[in-house]
């Protein structure tokens, strides 16, 4: 079943077409990557999905709801959560508070509950804290719950961002370059975490990633963007051998040499 389906989504900034005619389908329960050179429009596509930008054309269907024209917070309430390319935590809040902020759309207390400290308020707060601790132990943040988010090392901040995104019980998690700036060991741990998110929590994952090691390792399908448009789509093996993709990344010369190499291989195979 398709969790996300976009048809002909186009986003322009003035005369510049950042995303053009994107047709994209994401099946439930998959881990899918979007790759492409810098400036290809990947993050803009993310921002269009999450409602930060409103596309000029096209349709976005998420879990049966049309998203175009909806505000970011409404889209989050529908079950789409995200992390940011450059980490955006609430620095002056503790890790626990960051995570509980992520639960905002799932908490029902109103101003009256907060002022009168009703039973409902205490129950919900207690539940929220328990859930925050669960999430913290799931992503491996158990010891730092009361630290201010800005005091954590980079790798842990990434984890807080993921825990915070998970706090809204999302169906779909959008990760924008989640392993950027990580060393190989941290990257492996992160990839393991992403797998567990899908396998244990059943969250569908869409990620933008530059590290080919991560992309080829984790993705079940890959979509390639260049100049705002989708240029290829398919299994990791298909993508790594696709001349258009190589061209987008390395230039025409490299693509030609790949083609030559391939034809030589074919010759060798037949001969």
């Amino acid at each position, binding site marked *: 079943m398709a969790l996300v389906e976009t048809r002909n989504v186009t986003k322009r900034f003035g005369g510049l077409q950042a995303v053009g005619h994107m047709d994209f389908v994401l099946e439930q329960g998959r881990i899918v990557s979007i790759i492409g050179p810098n400036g290809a429009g990947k993050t803009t596509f993310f921002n269009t999905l999450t409602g930060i930008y409103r596309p000029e054309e096209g349709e976005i269907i998420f879990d049966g709801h049309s998203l175009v024209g909806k505000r970011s917070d409404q889209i989050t309430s529908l079950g789409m959560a995200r992390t940011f390319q450059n980490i955006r*935590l609430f620095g002056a809040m*503790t890790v626990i508070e960051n995570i509980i902020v992520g639960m*905002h759309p799932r908490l029902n207390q109103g101003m009256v509950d*907060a002022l009168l400290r009703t039973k409902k308020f205490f129950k919900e707060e207690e539940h929220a*804290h328990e859930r925050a601790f669960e999430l913290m132990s799931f992503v491996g943040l158990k010891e730092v719950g*009361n630290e201010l988010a800005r005091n954590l090392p980079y790798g842990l901040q990434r984890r807080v961002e993921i825990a915070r995104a998970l706090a809204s019980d999302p169906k779909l998690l959008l990760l924008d370059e989640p392993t950027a700036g990580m060393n190989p060991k941290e990257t492996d741990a992160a990839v393991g975490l992403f797998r567990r998110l899908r396998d244990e929590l059943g969250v569908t994952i869409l990620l933008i990633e530059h590290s080919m090691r991560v992309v080829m390792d984790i993705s079940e399908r890959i979509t390639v963007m260049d100049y705002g448009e989708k240029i290829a789509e398919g299994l990791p093996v298909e993508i790594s051998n696709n001349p258009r993709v190589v061209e987008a990344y390395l230039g025409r010369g490299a693509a030609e040499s790949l083609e030559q190499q391939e034809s030589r291989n074919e010759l060798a195979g037949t001969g």
Partner: protein
Amino acid sequence: MNKGMQLHLSDRLQALYTRLNQGKAPYIFSAIYLAIGTILVYISPRSLLAFLVFISSAIFIYSFRMDARYKIILAAIALLILVPIVGVRNIFYLEVIFQISVFAALALGLNIVVGFAGLLDLGYVAFYAVGAYTWAFFGSQQPFLLHEIPGTAPPGTPFFLPPNTFYLFIFIGVAAAALTGILLGTPVLRLRGDYLAIVTLGFGEVIRVLANNLDKPLNLTNGPQGITPIQRPTLPEPLLDAIRVVLNPLVGHNVSEGDFYNLFFYLAALVVILVVILVARRLDDSKIGRAWTAIREDETAAIAMGIPLVKMKLAAFACGASFAGVMGVLFAASRTFVSPESFSFMQSIGVLSMVILGGIGSIPGVIVGAAVVIILNLQILQGFSLYLSQLRQSDAVIPIINFAWKDLSTQLDPAKYQRMLFGIILILMMIYRPAGLIPAARRKRELVKEEVGVIGPDDQINGASESGNPGSDPGSEEVRHGAR
């Protein structure tokens, strides 16, 4: 060298504070300190130093590690018994404390907008004006003077409403100010940072100018002359007589009705401020307060977390405005007079400086900020001015340079340098203590059910979070320093 000595001194003060803050010592010390302060003020009602000793006892009562019940009892004795006695003896003190309460409530309201939600509001006093003019209009003869020339009232014009509707108007003032906050907020809260500050600044001026000019075509506000007289609620005469029996011998003179009104408004302000503190604390520690902090920290991330920005900002605006509204009603009644002058831009800046001075986002901080600014304004600077003018009138001469005090220019009157002094204080604060006198601390949490040991000694965690006092939580301050 100098710096080393300073450090040394502050270390010793710190050590002294720690020693006083152990076991039974704080219980005895704070009670004795309060008693000494009271006696000093009682003996010499005009001494500024005595008043400072008296009022600073609040700091010890608040910050020492004592049983909460003991703190409440001590505070209640101080606020409900000692302050009235001392205050009626020298009515000026009651005025100072009343002003502190009014501005503390304003600062707490602004703190919600600026401190919690991070929306810089430079026209905050407009909401105060809305509250004040609401009662000023309905609680005076003004509704019958709509077609009169401003400043003239035909003799025998009755009051529009009975005086005790004041109590009802406390709530109406809250609603009116909150509604104004929402009306203003709806179009402008999409703006960020500097743009919002400019628009709110403009709004503050608009309200003041409206108050100034709405004497034509219908005379709603009586223009620059302001509305007067405004009614006060009636005080029951038998009760006053009963109180007089006790109070007269204590204060040493017959307590007049005016004194009782001062006392009444002081107590009313006290009730309001307690409610305001409660509301601010509870909202801060709830879904709404967390959403505000999130918006302050990063709007884009906040909206991606499902927080409806405009709605939450409106809530902050309405809450802050309602605190100002209630104090406006109280202010109008206590002065029996309002005029546009009381709601100038400088007032907004004054309240903002209380928030910044005390500690942006910190509830005890902004109260201390309000107290410091008011005492500085009303007492210390004016005390200096008085002292200087006395010197000027005497024949005293500064010895070596042979300078006669009476030649001193009146331009050197400290009260005239009030704003410059504030400016300097604010600059120094920003350099040396950017998080304010009592920086805001985040609440710390733990899961009590399992693994208490992992997080650490829970005493320490609880102590730091609950009291949030300057002594016990140096960590949060450091953090703040790093941030700016």
